[in-house]
């Protein structure tokens, strides 16, 4: 197969070893290729230097861009570590195509160690609540639980050479879908163990579940919303610091209150605050839906096609 000539200087080779045509590459670049076909092509692209050039050429890239494309594909081939089998199988069972499942499941917080660490942090707070530290344990849980999923997001995307970030730079494949799925998976994985733990708190009963669940939802959606402007791990760090800043006055005042008084009197746990959290969450969801194509994209590229 040959690349059709037409433009001066376009390189032709009669000895192209693979059977991929330029039309297929053009469809891939413009995003019209279906998910599984795109995935199969990407696996091929990791190995085939000629097709990498073709992708870059089909996207109208110049020599420097092509070089960058090739080195990124090469790095991806080396850097993508095998995902934990359980998480990946679960992801496939939920209907994700295999290559997306790999990327989604390769998030570090889905590894056993991280799930245990983050759960342990919450468990410690529960313990502290019973060990007579005053309101400290309850306060710690109510402040920590909303940001455990956000911390998970930071860890998921903060590693150097993170494959999704690299992918967003070279593949027209909708990386925002991967970011969305992966983030939601991490958030869910972080929140699921927190719910039973919260029932164990002395002053917090089932009716008080919303005290931390609503802020958690607000924090997670805000992280996603901010991630349409900056990188996901930075969005997570920003959201977490913002939440801690909001919680700081309550933490200072909590010193001379008991656990029950904590929930009854601090502004952070009043119905008005809960309404605000819901509002923030709704606004964040609107932002995410509206700007979803920019999720996880390289801000320098101005988003994905």
């Amino acid at each position, binding site marked *: 197969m040959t690349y059709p*000539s037409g433009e*001066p*200087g*376009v*390189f*032709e*080779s*009669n*000895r192209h*070893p*693979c059977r991929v045509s330029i039309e297929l590459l053009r469809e891939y670049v413009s995003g019209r290729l279906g998910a599984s076909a795109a995935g199969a092509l990407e696996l091929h692209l*990791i*190995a*085939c*230097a*000629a097709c990498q050039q073709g992708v870059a050429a089909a996207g109208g890239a110049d020599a*420097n861009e092509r*070089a960058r494309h*090739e*080195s990124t594909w*090469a790095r991806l*081939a*080396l850097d993508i570590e095998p995902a934990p089998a359980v998480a990946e199988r679960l992801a496939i069972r939920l209907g994700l195509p295999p290559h997306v499942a790999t990327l989604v499941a390769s998030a570090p917080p889905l590894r056993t160690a991280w799930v245990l660490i983050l759960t342990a942090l919450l468990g410690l707070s529960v313990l502290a609540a019973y060990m007579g530290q005053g309101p400290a344990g309850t306060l710690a849980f109510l402040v920590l639980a909303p940001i455990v999923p956000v911390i998970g997001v930071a860890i998921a995307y903060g590693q150097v050479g993170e494959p999704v970030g690299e992918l967003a730079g070279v593949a027209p494949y909708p990386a925002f879908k991967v970011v969305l799925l992966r983030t939601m998976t991490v958030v869910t994985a972080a929140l699921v163990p927190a719910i039973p733990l919260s029932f164990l708190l002395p002053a917090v009963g089932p009716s008080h579940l919303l005290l931390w669940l609503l802020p958690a939802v607000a924090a997670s959606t805000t992280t996603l919303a901010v991630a349409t402007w900056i990188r996901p791990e930075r969005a997570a760090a920003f959201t977490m610091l913002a939440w801690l800043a909001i919680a700081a006055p309550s933490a200072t005042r909590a010193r001379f209150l008991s656990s029950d008084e904590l929930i009854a009197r601090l502004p952070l746990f009043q119905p008005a605050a809960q309404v605000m959290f819901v509002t923030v969450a709704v606004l964040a969801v609107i932002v995410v839906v509206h700007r979803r194509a920019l999720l996880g994209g390289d801000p320098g590229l101005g988003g994905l096609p």
Partner: protein
Amino acid sequence: MSTQIRLAGVTKRFRSRAALSLVSAEIGHGVTGVLGPNGAGKTTLLRLVATALQPDTGELDILGYDPAAADGRLAIRRRLGYLPQDVGMYSGFTVREFVDYVAILKEITDRNERRAETDRVLDEVGLGDRAGQRIRSLSGGMRRRVGLAQALLGNPALLVLDEPTVGLDPVLRLQFRELVSRYATTGTVLLSTHLTEDVAAFCQTVLVIEGGQLIFAGTPAALTSMADGRVWTSAGPDAGSELSWRGADGRYRHIGDPPPDAELLSATLEDAYLLTIRSLPAQAVRR
């Protein structure tokens, strides 16, 4: 020619992929160009010579020192100027601050001597009047010159430059060639490129690497002669030749056996290079 760098049977693997396989070469004074497509192993070879990597097998001798030993590495690094492919610099630093910092790392501890040396290298690359400018405000070509400046600190006996001319316009590339040629009169320069015109212009020796293997080592003239008698031009494409493409003037250039109604052309280094690396199949990546 006295050998400055000697490689014998050097292999370097990354996970399951061999970036370099059993490469043996001897490099002497002057400018040696390493030519090859992306992913061929050029960067790996340069990193090995710059002591940024250790080989898995084989022997390396650089300026008479063995980089496998810690004191050998230190001795090499004291005589080395290295410019890797993508140098991200500290964007908040000024040009002078960055080069000064590198000068400290090169053990130029006396402050006055450092200042003099920083001024010298910045003048050499033509950035003397921009010394106070922040790196984030520089263009790509200027950043590359800062990178070159830091490599020149301390007058190294060995310069290792990875794709130094990428992103430079022809005028800058000419200045770069002049600068490097001056250093190469008494020192050794090893540079990698995928631009054949760089090699043709000022390299005394050329190594061609493809797929991790050294497939040619010799002078540029010797490489060019491999395409003698095999370069043709005609009006239309040809399915039978090794390579065929349409040039800017609308005529087709072929390398290989002559198609009908073709005229013979004199071969260039690029033709010989393309001929040499033409048909190696894509390397399968084993996961």
